[in-house]
């Protein structure tokens, strides 16, 4: 069977970044062969104007919608996370580590409920710090961002 298509099949069903090692095992190739297969898959996706893109972090691969398509689809498909919660998460990710009291200053009192939801989803960690809480994103959250090439934003995310 076509290994590049097999790789696409794996990434299609994964729903999260997949380690080189895991991919290599499933495809019965060596770890070092994974980047070449990924790059061939990228070419194929571009070749047929697919809305999909393969993010390669050097450790894992992640297939996501290209940015312009995600802007179009997610607002319509009603993502599980509301726009307001997403904005709160972005502020925390950008400013982390951040005091909850500072967050409320920026996002209003609705932020308490947002933090509650984000902690429950395992995207934000909350730790007592004096009279307030210190907030930062979790390793689970970072897992989705290993591949980010977002210059200054990336630096902020690498704080931890």
């Amino acid at each position: 069977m076509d290994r590049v298509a097999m790789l696409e099949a794996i990434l299609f069903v994964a729903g999260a970044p997949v380690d080189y090692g895991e991919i290599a095992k499933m495809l019965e190739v060596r770890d070092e062969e994974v980047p070449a297969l990924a790059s061939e898959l990228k070419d194929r996706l571009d070749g047929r104007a697919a809305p999909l893109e393969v993010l390669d972090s050097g450790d894992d691969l992640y297939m996501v919608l290209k940015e312009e398509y995600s802007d179009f689809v997610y607002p319509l498909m009603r993502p599980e996370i509301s726009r307001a919660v997403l904005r709160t998460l972005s502020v925390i990710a950008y400013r982390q580590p951040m005091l909850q009291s500072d967050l409320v200053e920026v996002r209003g009192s609705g932020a308490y409920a947002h933090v509650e939801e984000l902690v429950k989803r395992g995207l934000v960690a909350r730790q007592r710090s004096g009279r307030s809480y210190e907030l930062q994103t979790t390793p689970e959250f970072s897992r989705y961002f290993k591949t980010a090439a977002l210059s200054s934003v990336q630096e902020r995310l690498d704080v931890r």
Partner: protein
Amino acid sequence: MHEEPVEILVQLAERGEIDPWNIDIVDITDRFLTELERRRELDLRISGRTLFFAATLLRMKSEYLTTDPFEDQEEGDLDDALEDEEILECAADEAEPIERLEREIQRRIGRKRVRRRPATLYELITELKAAEKEERRRRRRRAQAQQHEVPLPRTSEIVAVAHDEDYRGAAEDVFGCYTRLAPAGETLTVRVLCDSLGKRTIDVYIPLLFLALEGEVELWQEEYFGDVYVRRDMHGQSRYA
């Protein structure tokens, strides 16, 4: 006039400068009382004020806790646009990177939906086989339970059977008779086996119970006091065949 610590906290909370959620009222009250005692200035009026402030804080906290989060969310959705404008005003220099970050987060987290594969026809068939096995087991259990309501063999009879002829020999005889009458594992009644062997029910039934226990045959009954059926258990590995 010096402001008391608790009063300061209340003012801070009222001005929205601290989150009442994060105040440990017990701790603060204790510390305040300890401080007063240390100074040997304990006085009922101050104590009363302390309690009053503590109560105020408690009320604020309980109000926060009892707010319906869904009510908040609905309002929140309507306020989304407002909040977004707010954030642009608050941090103009940060608004652009945060917006970019928000889109990137949505792109990646939004993808987070673990795909489950559809079930296959093969699995459906496998489960059907399992269901049938399960049902046979259930029937067997039911049959065994009902057997105890059918004329119960007396203990002496069982002992007699087990002693007179060794049970394995008796089981071999009954199984041999069954295979002769039902070479393809068909269903027979115990009555037919008794007639064929010319034995009493008890002399056939006890060996059958042994055979069922060893997984050679299945025994069941469809109605109270009705016929008891025997069928070869195709899943069992026969030692007698």
